[in-house]
């Protein structure tokens, strides 16, 4: 299986999208080209504000601009938008529910930059912040169409964004839909909920699992807060052997926890297995290496299903190698910071 690779889906789309929106500004913190807004800056210099490596102030200035009716789109690495400036994010932006858009690139273990650069608890932290909306794009189509979704929200939006070479998994004519899961396959044995880059990883294993007769109800979720989609509830209620979540994040407080809350609140009495970072920090290495090291890859999904269904599915690591999608780990993706 292979997908179309789209180069820099955010870059040109954002330039085109913001052309007739003079209220849209870009603020950066010394990662302008790394976040694909270098050309945006050159085209709209009057709407671009370099804030230097000073995120606390950048968030405050964004709040002031938003209070005046502008819509600042902050571009930096995900980790720098919430970890250091959390008080500013909460008191200057989230409390008054201002229209600030936080474009967080390289979420989770996507960066080889190591622990300082890896946003592994951003969803957990920001789910607990009132008024926040959290979105996560999972492919090029969503990266190209998330702008309208964020733009329409009358409050702060945090976006786990993708850059560089991104696979197109979802059809071009099926854009990002707010708080609406994509149903990628149906089946009644296991309900699988994946987000972000984990969807593509899961899709490597799904055909093999289906060949073995496993019925998988696979949903891709891209709105992580609010997390009130009835499609998700229905899928959880239909799981015979259990529910699995896969996220590029700690298993504490993220999608797995959100799913657990829904299951408990609705009395859904099947087992839940959360695939993600198991309450651990990671380190600087490639995405492929880290996904394997921390049990976040297709192999981990197969093992999880074996465990929940209490049977050996007879899928080997080499079977999974053969269906490795070219896009996820091609050399084209080895980018500098």
């Amino acid at each position, binding site marked *: 299986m292979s997908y179309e690779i789209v180069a820099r889906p955010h870059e040109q789309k954002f330039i085109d999208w913001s052309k007739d929106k003079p209220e849209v500004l870009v603020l950066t913190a010394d990662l302008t080209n790394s976040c694909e807004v270098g050309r945006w800056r050159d085209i709209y210099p*009057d709407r671009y504000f370099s*804030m230097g490596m*000073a995120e606390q*102030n950048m968030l405050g200035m964004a*709040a*002031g601009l938003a209070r005046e009716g502008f819509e600042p789109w902050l571009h930096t690495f995900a980790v720098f938008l919430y970890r250091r400036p959390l008080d500013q994010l909460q*008191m200057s932006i989230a409390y008054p*529910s201002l229209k600030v858009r936080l474009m967080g690139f390289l979420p989770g273990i996507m960066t080889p930059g190591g622990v300082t650069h890896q946003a592994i608890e951003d969803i957990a932290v920001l789910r607990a912040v009132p008024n926040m909306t959290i979105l996560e794009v999972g492919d090029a189509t969503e990266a190209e169409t998330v702008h309208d979704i964020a733009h329409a929200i009358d*409050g702060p939006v945090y976006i786990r964004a993708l850059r560089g070479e991104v696979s197109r998994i979802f059809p071009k004519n099926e854009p990002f839909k707010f708080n609406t899961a994509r149903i990628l396959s149906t089946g009644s044995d296991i309900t699988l909920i994946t987000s972000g880059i984990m969807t593509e990883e899961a899709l490597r294993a799904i055909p093999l699992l289906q060949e073995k007769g496993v019925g998988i109800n696979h949903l891709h979720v891209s709105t992580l807060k609010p997390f009130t989609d009835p499609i998700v509830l229905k899928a959880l209620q239909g799981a015979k052997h259990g529910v699995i979540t896969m996220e590029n994040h700690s298993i504490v407080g993220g999608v797995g926890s959100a799913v657990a809350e829904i299951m408990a609140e609705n009395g859904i009495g099947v087992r839940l297995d959360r695939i993600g970072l198991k309450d651990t920090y990671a380190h600087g290495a490639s995405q492929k290496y880290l996904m394997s090291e921390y049990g976040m890859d297709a192999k981990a999904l197969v093992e999880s299903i074996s465990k929940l269904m209490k049977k050996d599915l007879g899928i080997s690591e080499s079977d999974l190698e053969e269906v490795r999608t070219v896009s996820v780990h091609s050399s084209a993706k080895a980018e500098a910071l």
Partner: protein
Amino acid sequence: MDLQKMQGIADGIRQRVLAHTLANNGGYMSQACSAAELLGAMYGGVLNLAPVSEPINPPFFKGVPVVGTASVKEYLTGAQFHGAKGPNFDRFIISPAHYALVVYAALIETDRLREDGLDFFNKDGSTVELIGAEHSPGFETTTGSLAQAISQAGGIAIARKIRKESGKTWVFMSDGEFQEGQTWEAFQAAAFHKLDKLRVIVDVNQGQCDGPMDSVMSIEPLVGRVKAFGWSASVVDGHDLDAITQACALETGHPHVVLCYTDPVRGLPLLNERRPVLHYLRFKSKEEQAKYELAYKEMVK
């Protein structure tokens, strides 16, 4: 500039805050003593604010802003006490939110807040909160976590610069906030983006919660530091209205800061007995309270 009127506001601030402190056995008294002339100057003529038709009754708290609901748009803002916004008008952002009582007193003195507004101070369900937030009279940002106002004011100043507005954006800060890293991030950004209509006025009372600032964390030489960050600066006696108003009128082509060095017991020398910690006045005994009652009688004579 009507310096006499400004002095009247300053005197009224001290009297109202002391009266309130006596009635409630507690108050940010030294902040009133230090900042009375500063706020008297600002509200008494330095700021170009739209008038309000009559002193405003402080509304009750209606709830926090909630995303996706009308409450965001209907949310009360304390900025209404500063009059209608307009391109030519100034904005006045209060940063040290624990000066709220002092700010409310200044608003009463300038007929922007109803005289009985302080009756609702720190009362459940009221917007006249102990630590002001953006629904409190005179506040338009939520800055009880200090040093966040200067960045927000910087954003407002950029927005006004984009719209080519002539009004200035003023921030009232306390000197303790210059211990926060965010303040310096904001100062470097304001200079870098040439926000020449951004103004900061600081109550340099040299005290903070733990005591004298030079025993907690020194910020001196403050004027040298702010100038090194690309701002122009004036250093004035914070009780000299002539000096304050002249410094506030300067047009330097840079963001400008007026450092008002103040005396935290000015007008109430009895507070000297509380040194070195002046941050909050709560009477330790009936005898002490009686002394302050006497001082109040002297003050209003």
